[in-house]
């Protein structure tokens, strides 16, 4: 018996052919497809919301500096006695606000970059 005959051994083939197993769960395919469809829907809405999030973050990053600048320039005109009730002056208060908002925007951008790179919930 040569080596190839030994590998293609018909005796073994007859036996192993009887070893085929079947998944016992009759709903296996339905369950799997439901899972895949749910994940696909989730993935679709995830991508949609990701796009919207990018749009709003860019919009707020553009609008925020303009609105802060507007508020700072007009603050003393509209609220001339405001500084009397605060331990800090309005310039310092605005600086804190700007730093806080910039940090929040940067944090959100970082989260969005991570989510975009992971490319969805299926991964």
């Amino acid at each position: 018996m040569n080596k190839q005959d030994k590998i293609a051994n018909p005796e073994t083939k007859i036996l192993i052919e009887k070893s085929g197993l079947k998944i016992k769960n009759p709903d296996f395919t339905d369950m799997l497809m439901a899972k895949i469809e749910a994940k696909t829907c989730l993935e679709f809405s995830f991508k949609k919301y990701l796009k919207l999030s990018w749009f709003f973050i860019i919009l707020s990053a553009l609008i925020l500096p303009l609105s802060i600048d507007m508020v700072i320039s007009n603050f003393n005109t509209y609220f001339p006695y405001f500084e009397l009730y605060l331990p800090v002056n309005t310039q310092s208060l605005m600086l804190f606000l700007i730093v806080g908002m910039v940090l929040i925007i940067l944090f959100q951008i970082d989260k969005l970059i991570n989510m975009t790179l992971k490319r969805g919930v299926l991964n």
Partner: protein
Amino acid sequence: MDNITIQKVIEGDVNAFRFLVDKYKDMSFSISCSILKNEQIAEENVQDAFIKAFKALKQFKGDSKFSTWLYKIVVNEALKKIKKKSLETKEINDLDEYKEYSSVNDSIKEFSLFYQKKYINATLNKLNEKESLLLRLYYLNENSIQEIKEITNLSTANIKVILHRARNNFHIKLEKELNHELSSIL
């Protein structure tokens, strides 16, 4: 047929994937059982592998058969589960002699098909994961050595050696199983 279905799935027809699941789930399950030796975990593994295949379907270039590509995912997922859960697998390395198998074949014919299947699968479960996997791929799914190489990442020489050893181990173990069963009946 597979390629048409794959194209449909890529174009957004998620339900077309059902055809591929129905076609390959049982062989994927047999492969998973060979490695994991546990039907429940094997079923989970098949599910995970199909989800992974669905996600990666766009990356399937059609260089090999879809089944070869899918079974490679099934094998990799099963190996990951073994690593994760440290499942117990039994190594049998002391049965390397070659022998004729006709006596085993004659003995098993005495049993009904149900029991034949039961003893054959019990014996395959006693082999280590590589041996049982290669036997099923080569003799049950009729994969070529080249396809087995792609699925398992083993070298051709290694596959031949393991197949040779697996066959011997399988027949010796099966004979023991049958003798034990016959003696318990008598």
